């Protein structure tokens, strides 16, 4: 097998000292974008018209842990501004606190993300701890990490603990994958998927392998997930002999590096207008924040990973840190919203689990 080429890395917003490295600046810019005539860009008013204001949680199904911003890739659309130079990382004490909190709840799903979550030294502790508690564990894996020698054991480790692996792959061909995620990513991702297939993932044996695709550009995903999945299964099998279980489509959020790209390419106004115009009450009713809590690397609590990156903590009196975790309060909390939320309610809707409506 040929040695995959080196990944092309770009400096993060933080490294470039871009004003958009600041969450407050991102929120302010998105809030002030003039929309196309006739569009109302206030998310709460849209909720009101849909009979959903104020948006509130309805139970806790998912305990999502973002272990930090360290990543071996620098994808052009990353809402985390992750990269190899980021130092935010969950400590062992906070990881243990996650497990202590989980043990006192019945939350069935633990969803581990980052950055590349496997780079955190406490990743395996979280996986084994959550599995011991009988929880379903998901690893949001960027695939290329599986190709580094240090993580060669990961496919067996994940399979051994029956972890669901959720992998980002914008396309089943190289062009769009490398455009979004960096030159060299596609070839390594295919190699990573083959490793996962080799230990039994994606073959209907209970080791679930999910692929996640985001549009490459200022576009909403408009195919139904089911139709796209049929095509992807056919093409990945035909081109690479790869099997997987499900395909999820996720809308890109006007946050961080994707927000910068939208601005620089002159697409911001039109993209935001598209999101607002495509507001779908059915998708809004099912948004993921209503059934999850998102834990940051520092133990702070947020309504979702997007709010986490915008430094919007849980609000309206809900607990804001793991140390004050209260399942009942969080399960009925009011959700903190802003204009970026239109990203989850557009068209068929979008969530960490794919389309909503």
């Amino acid at each position: 097998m040929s040695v995959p080429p080196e990944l092309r890395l770009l400096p993060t917003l933080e490294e470039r000292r871009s004003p958009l490295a600041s969450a407050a600046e991102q929120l302010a810019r998105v809030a002030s974008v003039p929309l196309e005539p006739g569009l109302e860009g206030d998310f709460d008013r849209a909720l009101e018209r849909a009979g959903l204001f104020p948006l509130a949680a309805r139970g806790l199904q998912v305990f999502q842990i973002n272990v930090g911003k360290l990543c071996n890739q620098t994808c052009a659309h990353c809402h985390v501004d992750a990269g190899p130079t980021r130092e935010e990382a969950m400590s062992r004490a906070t990881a243990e606190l996650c497990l202590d909190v989980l043990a006192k709840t019945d939350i069935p799903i633990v969803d581990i993300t980052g950055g590349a979550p496997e780079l955190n030294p406490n990743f395996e502790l979280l996986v084994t701890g959550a599995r011991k508690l009988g929880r379903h564990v998901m690893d949001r894996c960027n695939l290329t990490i599986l190709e580094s020698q240090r993580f060669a054991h990961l496919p067996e480790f994940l399979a051994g603990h029956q972890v669901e692996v959720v992998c980002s792959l914008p396309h089943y061909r190289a062009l769009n994958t490398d455009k979004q995620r960096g030159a060299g990513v596609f070839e390594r991702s295919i190699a990573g998927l083959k490793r996962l297939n080799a230990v039994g993932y994606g073959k209907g044996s209970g080791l679930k392998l999910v692929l996640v695709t985001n549009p490459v550009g200022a576009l909403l995903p408009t195919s139904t997930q089911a139709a796209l999945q049929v095509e992807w299964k056919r093409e990945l099998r035909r081109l690479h002999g790869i099997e997987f279980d499900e395909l999820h489509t996720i809308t890109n959020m006007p946050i961080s590096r994707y927000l910068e790209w939208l601005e620089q390419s002159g697409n911001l106004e039109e993209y935001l207008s598209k999101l607002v115009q495509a507001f779908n009450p059915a998708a809004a009713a099912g948004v993921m924040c209503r059934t999850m809590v998102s834990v940051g690397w520092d133990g702070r609590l947020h309504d979702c990973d997007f709010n986490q990156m915008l430094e919007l903590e849980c609000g309206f009196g809900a607990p804001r840190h793991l140390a004050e975790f209260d399942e009942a309060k969080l399960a009925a909390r009011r959700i903190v919203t802003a204009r970026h939320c239109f990203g989850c309610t557009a068209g068929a809707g979008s969530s960490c689990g794919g389309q909503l409506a």
Partner: protein
Amino acid sequence: MSDAHYYDRHDLGRFPEIGQHAPELAKKFFDWYGAVFAEGALSAREKSLIALGVAHAVQCPYCIDAYTQDALSKGCDVEQLTEAVHVAAAIKGGAALVHGVQMRKVADHVGM
């Protein structure tokens, strides 16, 4: 009316205005159009690529704008779009060229 140019991309959004003096016909057209592009024996993605090819063959700038975005948003990449345009161009080019047989028949008939 502005005389700067004949085509304005924002006019595509005004397409429903064609119904103003023939609402029933417009309704029939838009209902039919929607049904044509629904998932069926062909996927919506396949239909989008066909539409993109035809848009080039009929050289409609509105359709090219709309179906470039539509095909991309349905998960196609620009290499796939380019091949669809070549299919349309090949059929157009072939259609012109195959009429050369007509030319030859006429030439054979009247020539010596």
